[in-house]
């Protein structure tokens, strides 16, 4: 175990710069501003996206954004035919992508970057901490662990969200609970009828009764949330190298050519997004220029 994600080999040919056009096979509204789309590669199986890796998605005529894969679908014969992305409408490109309807075309480049390297947690407990839409890139961690359940110890999922209405994958969370995932959810602002926890996601850590010596943690959410969560997990005794965070920076080329996503010594599109907290901790405290 290195404490880092799985590093992809360096890309040397120009193919990663040319998008393939995928058709929107399905579209589901998760929350008021969040949509999950399934994208089908017209000519066969989709590339082997590892959990944690991202694609550059193009809304034609609008622009391109990096979006982590949130799952692979229709995996008959061992090769997935659908790429799943959960998108939040925060700007012009993501608004256009969220509005794409079944049958429409979306440009896809990738896979890019490092993955969560779920397999390296074999024999240990998996601790997943998600903040807001950070649950989307972590969904494949849960699915991978459940698909090979006997390889892992406990699977603990702690999720923080703004309000109960902003919670992603509510149906799936129930299914995961039934499948033995220990799920705890907290909200920043309770609404009438909410009977769950209220508070910061870090408040869920202590009651979870984790075994720090035997846990690997996967954390995704806003930078500050990841920082305080990783610090809390480290304070509990999980070594920083076994705490992984998913960094979000200004990824453009996806192939470490342009340097837009540089963070200290890292080019996040190549050396991230998934990085061990032993490397990320100091970098996450550097103020942006």
């Amino acid at each position: 175990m290195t404490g880092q994600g799985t590093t992809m080999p360096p890309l040397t040919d120009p193919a990663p710069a040319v998008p393939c056009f995928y058709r929107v096979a399905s579209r589901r509204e998760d929350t008021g501003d969040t949509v999950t789309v399934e994208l089908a590669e017209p000519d066969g199986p989709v590339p082997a996206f590892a959990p944690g890796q991202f694609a550059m998605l193009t809304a034609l005529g609008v622009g391109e954004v990096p979006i982590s894969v949130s799952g692979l679908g229709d995996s008959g014969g061992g090769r997935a035919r659908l790429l799943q992305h959960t998108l939040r409408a925060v700007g012009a490109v993501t608004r256009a992508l969220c509005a794409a309807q079944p049958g429409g075309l979306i440009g896809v480049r990738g896979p890019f970057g490092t993955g969560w390297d779920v397999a390296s947690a074999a024999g240990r407990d998996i601790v997943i901490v998600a903040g807001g839409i950070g649950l989307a890139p972590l969904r494949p961690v849960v699915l991978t662990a459940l698909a090979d359940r006997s390889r892992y110890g406990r699977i603990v999922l702690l999720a923080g969200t703004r309000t109960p209405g902003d919670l992603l994958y509510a149906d799936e969370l129930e299914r995961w609970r039934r499948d033995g995932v220990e799920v705890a959810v907290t909200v920043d602002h309770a609404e009438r009828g909410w009977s769950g926890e209220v508070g910061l996601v870090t408040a869920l850590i202590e009651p979870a009764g984790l075994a720090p010596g035997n846990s690997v943690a996967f954390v995704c959410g806003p930078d500050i949330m990841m920082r305080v969560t990783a610090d809390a997990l480290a304070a509990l005794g999980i070594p920083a190298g076994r705490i992984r965070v998913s960094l979000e920076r200004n990824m453009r080329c996806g192939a470490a050519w342009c340097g837009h996503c540089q963070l200290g010594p890292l080019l996040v599109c190549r050396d991230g997004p998934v990085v061990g907290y032993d490397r990320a901790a100091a970098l996450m405290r550097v103020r942006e220029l």
Partner: protein
Amino acid sequence: MTGTLAARISAHPFFAALTDEQRAALAGDGAAVAFAAGERLFDEGGSADRFWLIEDGSVALDMGVPGRGDQIVETLASGTVLGWSWLHPPYRWHFGAVARLATTAIEFDAPSVRRRCDEDPAFGYAALRLFTPVITERLQATRLRLLDLYASPSQVRQREILQADT
């Protein structure tokens, strides 16, 4: 939860920094209690004459907001301390508290603990050092929640419009 009260207090990490004598003294001011789900522990503005160590269950801190009913501001899980308004005048609860789930706790007689703190400054200092990290941690968590980290740009705009309109 089994074991004598003194043993439960001695075994709990929250009291780890106290000496055996201090823990024994504290046990003299404590009692085991249980609350049914939905049972109210105290009301906002009421006399802050107790505090609790939640052993099992969950308690919601709430505040009545006109037109919106009781709004939950935070929930406290097992292993945490409930109540610090007893530490300082005017010894009134700033929020209400209601058990979310069936909850067991150790309840402490706050005026008695306060008297012990006044009479024995070493005990008082140790007690304050137990509570300060809890207060600090909750303050930091509240500050982070104020940042509204999970809000989308549209939710931030909506909030700004609401703030400007009130």
